[in-house]
């Protein structure tokens, strides 16, 4: 019992929170309820009017009166139509409005979450929150509630008209109700389980098909056509049988409902017929009751359907509100400081950090300094903690101990916006979006002019290939820029970093498969970008590192060596030297080998972040 109560509380709580999103439309909701009320009346009054037509006019051979009643009937019919249309549209309108703001709110919330959140939650799940979970509320918000009220009104009106005509006959009709309730109840329970099963089976069949289309060459190469077909047949059979189960329930339910409704009619005829002989009930009443008996079952069935809608909507809203309740773990400072003249000096002071509490520290007591204008390279084996440094500097995560200073100010005392505006980041995977080249470079920042973009593009020699594209800077990229080559995508993300003209340039070196010509261009672009800027490069290719002012060699979460390339090479047993020798083997195989080794690194860094 107590658990029932607590779920009850949770449900009312969820409804209250949902209401907060409906609240801006509350007057429209009231209007919709009023419209429904009128429509329900117009709909249910007609059998009553029919009764009057028969008893008062047809029975008395009063044709003129009949015409009057008929006109009245037409009037109510048309007004019901108008009211219903207006009401349906109105409810859908504010329903969509509510969903719209809810969807945007969810997106906003997810986007505001810290990066750790994205490590923990697969993208697919987050997309579900912004799309299908919201859609699941559609039925409830766009017609559920108002129709529910409408159904209740209808029932009340019908009962009123029935009782006002003949209470005895009303009771006779109502006698069939318990059977209907019971049948509906049984049916709902069964069908719900059956439908859950159907949904599972559909997913199973579809994912099997999808997988086998994608892996068709494997199926054929390994001669599994026959076997996989058997597997498919089994799933297909389960899918079919799941449906056949639901067919059975429907095959019982719908006829049962029809039969019960007709039994009610039979009772009306039998009992009402008897009453009619005694003069207590007129023919008009009988005709009206036959209509009411049919009408009456409709909203009752509707009510039970709506109860289901409500249930699934609550499940979705629970997930949505759970998400909205999450706390963002990167707090903004209460009294933010500002840097008046950003220079780009960075200092890590005894920084300790780990991604997951139970695990080992990824960074152990890291200290280093970057003087404005300096080019720093960070090298190290996979998992040494190089990328983590970028993550911490951007405050994608907060450090556990120590401090990070930007121009002498602890980065936790800056607003996140100000902090990040000091950096321009070039990521390994050269992220591009669907949209024009221009948008991809400016990221929608209208302060950045076309001239600036062209200028920067010329500097890194991206202009040459961009101008050849149809529409040049207005060329629309599809599917994250798949139509461009790896090297071209890289150059675009360089231009992006350049136009933002940051104090500090942070490069997670993208070592993707490019031909040697592009590689030369890319390397040149690197140097162009770093000119006169503080830069931190996470280097995968040691060839890029050699010009750096300072190389930090990371190993197992610690900085083990610091110095220039030639200094570090002189250490006989130095880690840098060993790394160099290790890389040398890979370098032999040329540009493609570095591509594959970087792939490997991506895989493992993402593992490290989880």
């Amino acid at each position, binding site marked *: 019992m107590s658990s029932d109560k607590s779920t009850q509380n949770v449900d009312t709580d969820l409804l209250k929170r949902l209401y907060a999103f409906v609240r801006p439309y509350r007057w429209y909701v009231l209007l919709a309820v009023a419209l429904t009320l009128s429509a329900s009346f117009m709909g249910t009054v007609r059998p009553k009017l029919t009764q009057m037509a028969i008893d008062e006019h047809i029975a008395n051979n009063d044709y003129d009166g009949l015409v009057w009643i008929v006109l009245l009937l037409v009037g109510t019919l048309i007004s019901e139509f108008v009211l219903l249309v207006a009401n349906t549209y109105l409810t859908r309108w504010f329903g969509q409005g509510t969903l719209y703001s809810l969807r945007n709110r969810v*997106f906003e919330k997810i986007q505001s979450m810290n990066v750790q959140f994205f490590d923990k939650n697969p993208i697919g799940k987050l997309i579900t929150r912004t799309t299908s979970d919201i859609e699941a509320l559609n039925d409830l918000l766009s017609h559920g509630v108002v129709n529910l009220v409408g159904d209740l009104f209808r029932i009340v009106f019908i009962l009123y008209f029935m009782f006002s005509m003949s209470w005895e006959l009303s009771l006779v009709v109502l006698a069939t109700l318990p059977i209907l309730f019971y049948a509906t109840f049984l049916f709902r329970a069964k069908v719900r389980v059956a439908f859950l099963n159907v949904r599972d089976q559909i997913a199973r069949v579809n994912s099997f098909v999808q997988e086998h289309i994608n892996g068709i060459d494997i199926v054929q190469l390994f001669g599994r056509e026959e076997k996989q077909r058997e597997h498919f047949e089994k799933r297909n059979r389960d899918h079919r049988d799941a449906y056949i189960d639901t067919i059975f329930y429907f095959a019982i339910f719908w006829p049962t409902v029809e039969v019960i409704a007709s039994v009610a009619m039979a009772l009306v005829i039998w009992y009402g017929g008897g009453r009619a002989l005694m003069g207590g009930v007129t023919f008009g009443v009988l005709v009206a009751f036959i209509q009411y008996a049919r009408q009456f079952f409709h909203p009752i069935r509707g009510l039970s359907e709506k109860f289901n809608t409500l249930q699934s909507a609550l499940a979705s809203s629970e997930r949505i509100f759970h998400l909205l309740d999450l706390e963002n773990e990167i707090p903004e400072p209460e009294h933010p400081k500002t840097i008046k003249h950003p220079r780009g000096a960075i200092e890590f002071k005894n920084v300790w950090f780990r991604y997951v509490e139970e695990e080992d520290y990824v960074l152990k007591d890291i200290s280093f300094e970057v003087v404005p204008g300096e080019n720093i390279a960070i090298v190290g084996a996979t998992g040494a903690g190089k990328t983590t440094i970028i993550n911490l500097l951007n405050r994608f995560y907060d450090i556990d101990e120590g401090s990070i200073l930007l121009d002498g100010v602890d980065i936790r005392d800056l607003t996140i916006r100000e902090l990040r505006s000091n950096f321009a980041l070039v990521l390994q995977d050269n992220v591009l979006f669907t949209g024009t080249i221009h948008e991809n470079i400016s990221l929608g920042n209208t302060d950045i002019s076309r001239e600036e973009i062209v200028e920067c593009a010329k500097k890194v020699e991206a202009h040459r290939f961009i101008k050849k594209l149809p529409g040049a800077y207005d060329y629309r990229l599809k599917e994250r820029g798949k139509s461009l080559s790896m090297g071209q995508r890289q150059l675009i993300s360089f231009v992006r970093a350049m136009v933002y003209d940051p104090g500090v340039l942070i490069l997670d070196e993208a070592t993707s498969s490019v031909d040697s010509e592009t590689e030369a261009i890319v390397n040149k672009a690197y140097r162009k970008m770093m000119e006169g800027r503080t830069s931190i490069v996470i280097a995968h290719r040691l060839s890029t590192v050699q010009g750096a002012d300072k190389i930090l060699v990371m190993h197992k979460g610690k900085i083990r060596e610091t110095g220039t390339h030639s200094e570090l090479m002189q250490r006989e047993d130095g880690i840098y030297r060993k790394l160099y020798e290790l890389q040398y083997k*890979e370098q032999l195989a040329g540009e493609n080998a570095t591509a594959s080794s970087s792939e490997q690194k991506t895989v*493992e860094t993402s593992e490290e972040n989880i």
Partner: protein
Amino acid sequence: MRLQTLITLNRYFKKYLWTIIAGTFFLTAANFFLVWIPVFIRRTMDEISALGSQVDQSYDSLFTVLFSSEAGVVLARNAGFLLVAVALYGLLLFATRQTLIVSSRKIEYDIRNELFDKLVRLPQRFYSQRDTGDIYIRATEDVVRVREYFGPAFMYTINTFTRFGFIITMMLIVSPQLTLWALLPLPFLSAFAYYISGYIYSHSRKIQQQYSRIAGRAKEAFSSIRLVKSYNREAYEQSRFEEESDQYRRKKLRLDMVESLFHPMLNLLIGMSVIIVIWKGGQMVIGGNLTVGNIAEFVIYVAYLTWPVASLGYTVNRFQRSLASWNRIERILNEPIEIKDEDKTDHEIEGIKGNIEFNSVSFKYPDDDTYALRDINFKINAGEKVAIVGRTGSGKTTLTRLIPRLFDPQEGAIYIDGIDLKEIPLGVLRKEIGYVPQDTFLFSDTISENIAFGAQEADMDDIEEAAEKAQVRDNILEFEKKFETILGERGITLSGGQKQRTAIARALIRDPKILILDDSLSAVDTKTEDAILQHLYEDLKNRTTLMISHRISTIKDADQIHYMEEGRIVESGTHEELLSKQGRYYEMYNKQLIEKELAEI
């Protein structure tokens, strides 16, 4: 063409012909009994009317009326008949659904199986010509739509016609004139339903597209979250999302507007019919041509016609859609399977040794203008290790795909042990080849199922052994469920290197005569790679190995190295020979040396 489509579609009925005939009969009978309900209601009212005018004083207690009078018998008889009709109607309706709809699901099952069977047998040519998403939709959504032809569309059509037939007959018997009046609004209802369901369908697709756009936006923003955050572009992304979200709301509202017309319109037209019956019928009652019972009867008839008439428009629409879907499915079913065993296949061949010969082979992908392979000639003796190097797009992968006949070349021929590839039974050929593709594809199944994918008779020891050879056994044993660990969406995700090694195990377990490694060690670290190669080189000496790789360490011990460029083999030889040739391979090697020297300065 339409008729032809219909004929091919209707052959699926054949298997369930008797069930469907029975179902049709049940439905017809159900409607036959249905029309008796209003008839008995009218009779009751007419008889009461007659009784009432005969004697009007003797009925003083309801009990007497119902249970011990002449009237009671009349009432009970009519109500009883009514109940029998209702019960039969209900029973037959149940039988109808259990036959017609169940058959449609069985037909759907048959079509799905047939289509899947076709899909697994269709050659790669087919898949290279089409978008996989498109094929997926054929195999899922289109089948669902075709099912509707056999299920709801068929049932509603029979229902509409039989019910219509019986009801109209009854109505005409009572009064042709009133029938005409009552039916007046119904054609509008049908036309309207047709229009609306068409609109809803086409517009729903637009909404579906917009829905995908929302999901796409979210996906882009979430998967690039670091970039978005570091450039402080959250607000911009938010506005882009809201724009799509707003589009969605607008499109959805437009659909809602049309949809919101449907039920009210249905209500309006049917309400019109009822009112006309009361008006015209009333007039006739006053004129003495009809009874009030007839009005009651007609009111019910009209109600009974509502759904069949509305569903007529809807059914026509469904029907068109089903046919369109079937057309698309049929196109797949009619696709030729050009790579298969044919007359010249020599079924005596039960195994191969592993000599491979390419003789002037040229190949281009379907719908492509340029050749992917041009005049390829080489010979590999059984047991040799051969490496292919070259830039991305030079045709290396394409070359290896011709050996298991994923594609057949347009020109030239490939021989295995001196026999034309096309004479070797496809099953035998593929059984002898262990292929490790570039993009590792594993199925959402257990690891052991994945490894034993091409070796159905393999036991656990074989699986473990293969895993050991591929250097992935230790990783697998670290998982809680070991070899029974499920991969994929419902299970765990392997790292790139683990995936590749599992795929290698999958190839090795077949104990193939020819092993093809298409850049299959790229995500494996060098140490593990060395260990794997050790195994391949040492205890698999009698295997022909063909490997594509970018690491010179991997290939330099090969018996033969072919350097490819733009679909041609431009250099061949051993590592030393190629170096001494001072050609492209030498150039590539040398470039690395220079880089190394430069780096050492």
